[in-house]
């Protein structure tokens, strides 16, 4: 029985991981900005799928509501308002070529190190994150709420105040220009 669950876990994990990676690459390489946005949405949804495979359903739905339903709607909205003909004609990969290569090499090295150091994970050598058994997890949203409002109350409040300041600042700046 545990082996079979592992199989299903692996299939789902690699399915979503493949979608996420492929659509992330397509996001960068598409010339058409709206197509890029669609692939970014796909990548975010696939990441949400991985959260679900790990039985973090609260993170799954927060990812969908915040990133896909909130931020991406604003992205698409702005893309449609802005005249993009000029942007399409410009060179896509500009000056930061060397910096970008350095950073991605560092990132690749980090991921490789992680895979190498974990060695054999439970999935017969294939690295896969295995979800915790169902009955061992506390209810997800309650657990998140408890850690936010009990353990990390002060950092949470500080972050909220920071966001509020940013929000008011944005409104003030927008009003000044109008």
């Amino acid at each position: 029985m545990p082996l079979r669950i592992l199989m299903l876990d692996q299939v789902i994990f690699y399915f979503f991981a493949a979608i996420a990676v492929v659509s992330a690459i397509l996001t960068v390489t598409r010339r058409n900005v709206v197509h890029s946005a669609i692939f970014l949405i796909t990548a975010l949804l696939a990441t949400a799928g991985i959260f679900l495979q790990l039985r973090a359903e609260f993170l799954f739905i927060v990812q969908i509501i915040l990133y896909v339903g909130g931020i991406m709607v604003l992205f698409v909205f702005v893309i449609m308002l802005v005249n993009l003909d000029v942007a399409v004609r410009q060179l896509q990969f500009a000056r930061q070529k060397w910096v970008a290569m350095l950073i991605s090499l560092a990132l690749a090295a980090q991921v490789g190190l992680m895979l190498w150091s974990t060695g054999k994970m439970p999935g017969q050598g294939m690295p896969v994150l295995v979800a915790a058994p169902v009955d061992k997890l506390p209810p997800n949203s309650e657990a998140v709420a408890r850690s936010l409002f009990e353990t990390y109350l002060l950092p949470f409040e500080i972050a909220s105040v920071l966001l509020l300041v940013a929000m008011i600042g944005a409104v003030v700046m927008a009003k000044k220009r109008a």
Partner: protein
Amino acid sequence: MQGLTQATLEFVKQYWAPLVCGLAIVAVLPLIVGYVVLVERKLMADMQARLGPMRVGPHGLLQPIADAVKLLIKEDIIPDDADKLVFWLAPVLSVGAALLAMAGLAIGPAFQIAKDINIGILFVVGVSALGIFGIVLGGWASNSHYSLMGALRSSAQLVSYETAAGMALVCGLLFAGTLNITSIVQAQHEQGMWFGLLAPVAFFVYLVASIAETNRAPFDLPEAESELVAGYMTEFSGFRWSLYFLAEYTNMIVVASVATTLFLGGWLRPFPRTHWLDFIDFLPPLLLVAIGVYCLMRTPKQPARVQQLFMLAVAGLCFTVAVVLAAPVLLRTPFVNPSLASAAKPFYEGIHGGFWFIFKVSAYLYFFMWLRFTIPRYRFDQLMRLGWHFLIPLSIINVLLIGIAMIAGSYLHLEGGWLLLATIPASIIALIVALFILAMEQKSERQQAGGATPDPYA
């Protein structure tokens, strides 16, 4: 490989019931939506002193099927300059999101596809909000100015009203203390009070916001035909257009179900804990019997033989459903052997829960339609003003005050109906404060503008 097939078998064995329910929803929903449209047209006709569709079937009862066939065999047109792939994808996205949201809903305690998920109501709200991408991308892919304007309006409208709707949901969730749909309804059973009565202002905000989110009149700016032809659907025809239509009405059903679950007591009958009112259980079967008898009375007046037979069939259907509804109630009466009564209990809860849930959802939809035929369409700046200047402040203040009222209630040991003593004043204060803010803003704006008329498209 063998492990994989075994895993698949195991998967099917474990999840066959939700799979069948899901198939049933996908198969039956277009039919239901068709009849919701028929009801809407009939209501509109009634309110405008007309008859509405009368030709196909007795009193137009077969009209939805004729419409569906017409839409299916219409020519499928894709504009030359359209982005073909996105044009194809957009309606599918819209309808897919709406149908997926149905998975989280509970129609009665027995019928729920994704049973007992911890994030329940968040799942429904979050996934149904994804349908906006279908509208925006469809409007963009059509490569037409009308479509693009409709899409922009739609996304602006959704972004503005989602905050207010979310805050209104938070109010209800404060009382429930959980996101799980089954537990929300149980909380209302224990409280003995619908959350819509405990937080009337939150219910009102959700009502308005849900109309705006589903792009229904009086907020149907994205498809305002006097300005934008048909908004984002201008270039869509035939089957693709019908997919958008299906998505819109499915979304209506979804928001109505969310409101029913959170504010109107879900599948509980009115006064579920008052035992001397148990005779309410007999009302649903009696209602259906009355409809059946009415159909029988109208049968001789139908002009054609086929129509008479169809009318008889409708009457028969009503009587069958009435018997199904009445049987578990009759088994629960004290004259029957108690073991049989306890065996009938799950059937009673499932069938009557389903009836009350569908009844409340229908009432909510009826209210939507009523508003559509009563209130003229808003201008876009009026819509934005209503959202940002009134509903969002109102919902935020309301959450704050309801929270304070609940703390006060727990200090004073207010339970059940007595909690109203704390929450109703809180709601009223929230309403007054929001109205005051609105009045102050209008006053300062008038001083700034110096009497000049504001730009209506600002």
